């Protein structure tokens, strides 16, 4: 469905009107604190994802947004079963493209929403330990795909150019390892959390 996301992002920048308009563009950088979930028996710790977005305002209340995201290695809690003790972790990165409607509360404050699609590449890493005397092991596998994100935030402007933003967000990565494993093993990753960041308007 979103296979041409990368092309779309290139088109997004290509089709932008003259970029020299004053302060109709915003670059924001955020740290997204999130707990990934698959809906299974995973139990991830909170992790951080760095996001950087470029927003182009077609109207004072409406912008197109394109961005990048990179995570640190986010760890699942250690689990033990009949086979051994294992710990999963993930690293993810990708691109996003969407819209950002806004509502101005005052000259300095506004609320905004974000909605769009993502293209992700996620690495799943498993470390496993057995009884003493048996070799431990580690295995990892990359997968890529698409998904979507939705968020609502508050932006406070310190100056005309510098602003702070706080956002509640959910990013969904769909169908990890689809086509590589059996259908009942394919899963989605849901990243829910909040982000804090700074914006620079120009």
């Amino acid at each position, binding site marked *: 469905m979103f296979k041409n996301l990368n092309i779309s992002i290139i088109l997004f920048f290509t089709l932008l009107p003259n970029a020299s308009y004053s302060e109709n563009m915003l670059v924001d950088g955020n740290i997204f604190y999130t707990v990934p979930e698959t809906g299974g028996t995973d139990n991830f710790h909170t992790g951080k994802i760095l996001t950087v977005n470029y927003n182009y305002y077609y109207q004072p209340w409406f912008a197109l947004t394109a961005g990048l995201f990179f995570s640190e290695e986010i760890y699942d809690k250690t689990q033990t079963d009949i086979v051994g003790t294992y710990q999963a972790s993930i690293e993810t990165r990708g691109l996003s493209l969407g819209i950002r409607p806004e509502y101005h509360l005052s000259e300095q404050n506004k609320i905004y929403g974000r909605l769009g699609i993502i293209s992700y590449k996620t690495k799943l890493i498993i470390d496993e330990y057995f009884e003493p005397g048996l070799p431990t092991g580690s*295995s*990892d596998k990359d997968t890529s795909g698409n998904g979507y994100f939705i968020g609502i935030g508050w932006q406070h402007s310190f100056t005309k150019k510098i602003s702070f933003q706080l956002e509640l967000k959910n990013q969904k990565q769909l169908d990890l390892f689809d086509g590589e494993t059996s259908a009942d093993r394919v899963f989605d990753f849901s990243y829910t959390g909040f982000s804090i960041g700074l914006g620079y308007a120009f």
Partner: protein
Amino acid sequence: MVLIHNKNLRTTATLAASSILLLLGACDIEINNNIPDVPPDGRFVVVGANQHKDMTDVQVGIAIFDDAVPVNLVGGDVVQASTSNDSILLLEKGFYKGSYVASLPNTTNFDQVNFLMVHEPLLARQDRWYPVDLLNIDPGAGEFVGASADISLPPVPLNMSASNSNFSSINDNFVLTWAAEGAGDSMRVRSAVSCTNGTANSTYGTEVVLVDDSDDGSENIDLNQIIYDINSDNQIIKFLLAEARAILQELLIKLSNGAADENFFANLVLINPVDNSCEIRLFLFRHRDGSFDSTSTNGRIFGSRSADINILYNPN
């Protein structure tokens, strides 16, 4: 048969039980989760299978010890229990340390159950959330793989009944009868007791010591092997232990469709049974010894089929 998964909960329950027992000065009740009577030296294996009347699956369990230390099966080594039609991996840890349990489907009531240690690194990980086929760390088969044992389930005890079903004194007794098979099997009588004073409950299990455990169709049973007085110094009660406890606990959960308390047999005695109304679920097991593939294997192996009736105790 995982009775207390949570380690903290288990510790709390154990401490609570210990405290209560100290306060009440009750008799010596075994509450830990070590299988008793495991010899201190050498390898020892406990294998059991039981099918209750009208149930379509067999409760199977196994535990392995080396020098009395439970052996954890790791790396994908797992016990497979099979009848001619069905098989299942024992993936669930049982109440007792080092024990593994499962429910083996047996809708056609096969009598033979085979246990085989296999190496199934993917199937053993089947409950994990990630694609184990893509991220498989396999240390290889362990030393137990290939070992096997066989159990023959005896017939289910039919026409089980008691000469009386309402009792008012622990000095009462009754005659338990059933249809004898005469195949040389032995019988076991066990109880699951639930007493209440309206606000608090005590639950526990007992093993009735039989004068004659042969399959002869009747047995005289004294109620003081089932209901007891925690203040008495002359108790003859024998609390349910080891694989008998594990099987009966699992059976209670099955018979109640999961509603039975997982700690039913934890012997948390909150009220004195002799002074309160008690519901007694009496179980009769027909018991038959099995065999290990290797004659050098030391341990206990048995198959059984069971039935139950309910009796009541209401003190005067």
